């Protein structure tokens, strides 16, 4: 197979032009806002309308790709090396990426609109929109890129913009720390990505995903070595490395996904990232950036061998369970959703690992909408609480309460009826109750895990049944914590006056949100109803999304489970998974009702600030003490290593260098003596004789160097003439 044919340039079409426009528009808006933002009054509208326009363009691209069944692919040589392969860059939109394009720009537009009110009082209003735009660009870059190198570049850009947005309120110490934490933990994953890229380059000599897929399908395993054979400009290249590197490569790329999608053990940045503005959390930490990890997995899915997939499945399951369990006892309204996001992403990653490719992507899209809806409605609640704080301040009551603490809320359904309805719809989807999108997609994932476990146990891996077990357990906790949030925030009594007794009539100052915030909420709630994705509320496979996206068969030479076998088993397990998930979700909501819904009149606050919570509860609140572990063990270990290296440097290397220095001083003294008496003596003699000759010949010379040169040239001329003729 000729590598240069695989990565030959592809022409620039009209649709590719539109796609590049989609990519460039947010950059343009970013530049306008950056340089002229302070001059323009309606800068927020520029950003919103620009993003809306982008959404329309994306929708057009989507319709072209989806209905005409075509793929936009534009590729050109970036660096061309004579006699070897080129390095290409390109833009590729297939069904999956165009769908992601639409959902990213859609949610981004809604978040822009929502932010207009939410961020209205902020001094750095313009900067906020500029960041949002540059974030959207880099996200679109990841989606559109046709090779891993380009994905890596935009991957880093997404990390950077996420850093900027989490630390947007840079006056807050916690926000700065959260942004640094997010950035560093993402970097840990990205190192894995880089290592994976290096192995890919060494083996395949290209980063282009299509070419990689072709190369992988032709690779073989010979004597435990992974062997690739292809030609570059006619020369045959045979590359062979031990099998383990194929796994290491996959693990490296998966590490990037672990960082970005907040999977175990790097998930601790996501709860802290809630320090950023709430619309940002909705856009980045629910719908887009964290989904990028899953998207990357989907892109490289056929290139992962089964060891990696098992690791992926286990990691996803662990994250799903840990996230869900930690979410059950958080009291910060946003952190509940943050842990929920970790858990749901764990679901998607787990689904990828068990080979439920379509189910994972299906859940990616449904989750993007309902989680963005949840975040924005929670944002509305926080907004209302903030306003309450301001109103009370005007009334002369200076209460410094935390507007995000759920224990200060309660009964808000009367004060915020619109938000309540939206929250109910989106939470319904999150809990995975029937008639919602979340139900359909979660059911698909659960069926996938059961099918995988069955197939694995046929191969002798009976332990695989633990994965569906964890998945159902997680589903229970998901329903439980969503139910808890619903009951604690919207039902019962308003609890602020119980803590701050001087704010008795605070409840009547809470007002529902304005229209600019209502529209996004309404649209996102609509997107959480099953009919958007599938006509049959109990079977996602009937829906257009399932029909449209085609799963790619694995291209690696060692495959454990046949994908057709897996899909047949999935069909088989569909109704079992459905029934079980209904049962589990119902049990979860029921438990939440029993614990928080029935006796909400009880003084919750007292029980929640109890002095000595049980071990399980403490584990949950502190997210299994992961932060503590990292801080006390990983960080201190690194510091110790650094200290010992410094010690080594001081004691051994410095001493050795000093010794060498002393040695040289001694040697140079000897040399100096020799220089003074022997060399100088010789030179002095020469100089003396030369000066004698010079002074004697100076009489015929004027001391003008250039004239000497001219005379010399005339002499040379004579020589030349003698040579030439």
């Amino acid at each position, binding site marked *: 197979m000729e590598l240069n044919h695989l990565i030959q340039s592809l022409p620039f079409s009209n649709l590719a032009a539109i796609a590049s426009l989609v990519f460039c528009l947010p950059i343009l808006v970013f530049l306008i806002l950056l340089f002229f933002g302070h001059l323009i009054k309606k800068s927020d509208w520029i950003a919103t309308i620009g993003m809306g326009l982008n959404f329309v363009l994306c929708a057009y691209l989507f319709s072209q790709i989806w209905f005409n069944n075509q793929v936009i692919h534009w590729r050109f040589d970036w660096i061309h090396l004579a006699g070897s392969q080129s390095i290409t860059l390109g833009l590729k939109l297939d069904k999956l990426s165009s769908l992601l394009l639409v959902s990213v720009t859609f949610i981004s537009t809604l978040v822009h609109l929502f932010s207009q009110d939410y961020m209205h009082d902020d001094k750095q209003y313009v900067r906020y929109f500029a960041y949002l735009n540059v974030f959207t660009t880099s996200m679109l870059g990841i989606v559109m890129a046709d090779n891993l190198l380009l994905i890596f570049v935009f991957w880093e850009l997404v990390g950077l913009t996420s850093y900027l947005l989490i630390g947007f309120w840079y006056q807050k110490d916690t926000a700065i720390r959260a942004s640094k934490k997010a950035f560093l933990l993402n970097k840990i994953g990205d190192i894995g990505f880089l290592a994976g890229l290096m192995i890919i380059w060494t083996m395949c000599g290209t980063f282009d995903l299509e070419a990689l897929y072709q190369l992988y399908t032709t690779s073989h395993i010979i004597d435990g070595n992974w062997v690739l054979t292809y030609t570059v400009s006619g020369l045959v290249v045979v590359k062979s490395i031990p099998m383990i590197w194929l796994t290491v490569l996959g693990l490296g790329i998966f590490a990037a996904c672990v960082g970005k999608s907040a999977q175990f053990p790097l998930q601790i940045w996501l709860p802290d990232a809630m320090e950023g503005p709430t619309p940002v959390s909705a856009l980045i930490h629910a719908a887009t950036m964290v989904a990028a990890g899953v998207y990357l997995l989907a892109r490289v899915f056929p290139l992962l061998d089964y060891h990696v997939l098992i690791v992926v499945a286990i990691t996803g399951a662990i994250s799903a369970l840990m996230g869900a369990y930690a979410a059950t006892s958080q009291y910060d309204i946003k952190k509940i959703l943050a842990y929920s996001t970790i858990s749901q992403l764990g679901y998607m990653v787990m689904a990828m690992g068990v080979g439920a490719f379509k189910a994972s992507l299906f859940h990616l899209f449904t989750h993007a909408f309902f989680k963005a809806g949840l975040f924005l409605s929670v944002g509305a609640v926080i907004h209302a609480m903030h306003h309450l704080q301001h109103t009370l301040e005007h009334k002369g009551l200076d209460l410094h309460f935390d507007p995000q603490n759920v224990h200060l809320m309660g009964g808000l359904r009367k004060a915020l009826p619109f938000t309540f309805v939206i929250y109910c719809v989106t939470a319904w989807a999150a809990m995975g109750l029937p008639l919602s999108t979340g139900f359909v997609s979660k059911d698909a994932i659960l069926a996938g895990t059961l099918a995988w476990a069955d197939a694995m146990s046929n191969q002798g891996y009976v332990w695989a049944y633990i994965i569906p077990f964890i998945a159902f357990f997680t589903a229970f906790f998901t329903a439980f914590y969503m139910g808890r949030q619903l009951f604690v925030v919207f039902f019962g009594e308003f609890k602020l006056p119980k803590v701050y007794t001087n704010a008795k009539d605070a409840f009547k100052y809470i007002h529902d949100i304005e229209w600019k915030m209502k529209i996004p909420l309404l649209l996102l709630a609509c997107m959480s109803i099953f009919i958007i994705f599938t006509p049959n509320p109990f079977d996602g496979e009937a829906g257009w999304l399932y029909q449209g996206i085609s799963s790619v068969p694995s291209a690696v030479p060692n495959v454990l489970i046949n994908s057709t076998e897996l899909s047949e088993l999935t069909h088989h397990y569909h109704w079992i998974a459905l029934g079980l998930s209904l049962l589990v979700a119902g049990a979860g909501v029921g438990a939440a009702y029993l614990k928080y819904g029935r006796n909400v009149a009880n003084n919750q606050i007292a029980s929640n600030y109890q002095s000595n919570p049980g071990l399980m509860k403490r584990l949950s609140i502190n997210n299994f003490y992961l932060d503590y572990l990292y801080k006390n063990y990983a960080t201190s270990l690194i510091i110790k290593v650094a200290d010992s290296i410094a010690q080594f440097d001081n004691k051994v290397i410095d001493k050795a260098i000093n010794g060498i220095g002393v040695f040289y001083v001694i040697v140079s003294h000897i040399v100096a003596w020799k220089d003074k008496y022997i060399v100088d003596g010789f030179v002095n003699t020469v100089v003396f004789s030369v000066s004698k000759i010079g002074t004697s010949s*100076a009489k015929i010379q004027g*001391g003008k160097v250039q004239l000497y040169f001219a005379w010399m040239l005339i002499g040379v001329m004579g020589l030349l003439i003698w040579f030439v003729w």
Partner: protein
Amino acid sequence: MKITLELFLLIGAILFCLGLYIIITKKNVIMVLMGIELILNASNVNLLAFSKFDPFRIQGQMFSIFIIVIAAAEAAVALAIVLRVYELYKTVDLDKINQLKD
């Protein structure tokens, strides 16, 4: 209009002679240095022009790379010398630096 070997040689020759002219006539030491650089460049032109007929061993190119390296070293050292000379004589006029006369 064809790019011939002779054309390159002609350009090299012209540059060389301009360099000679500069070296002989200019008073400023730094100008003389510039003339030397021009001459080095003229030699490079010739070497490269011939190197075209030696596409695999490219000795001409090798040679010119070394010339460039040495020219850089030469310029650095020469300018250091110029600075010292300026410190000593408070001038860079070559005609006034004529201590060699006596």
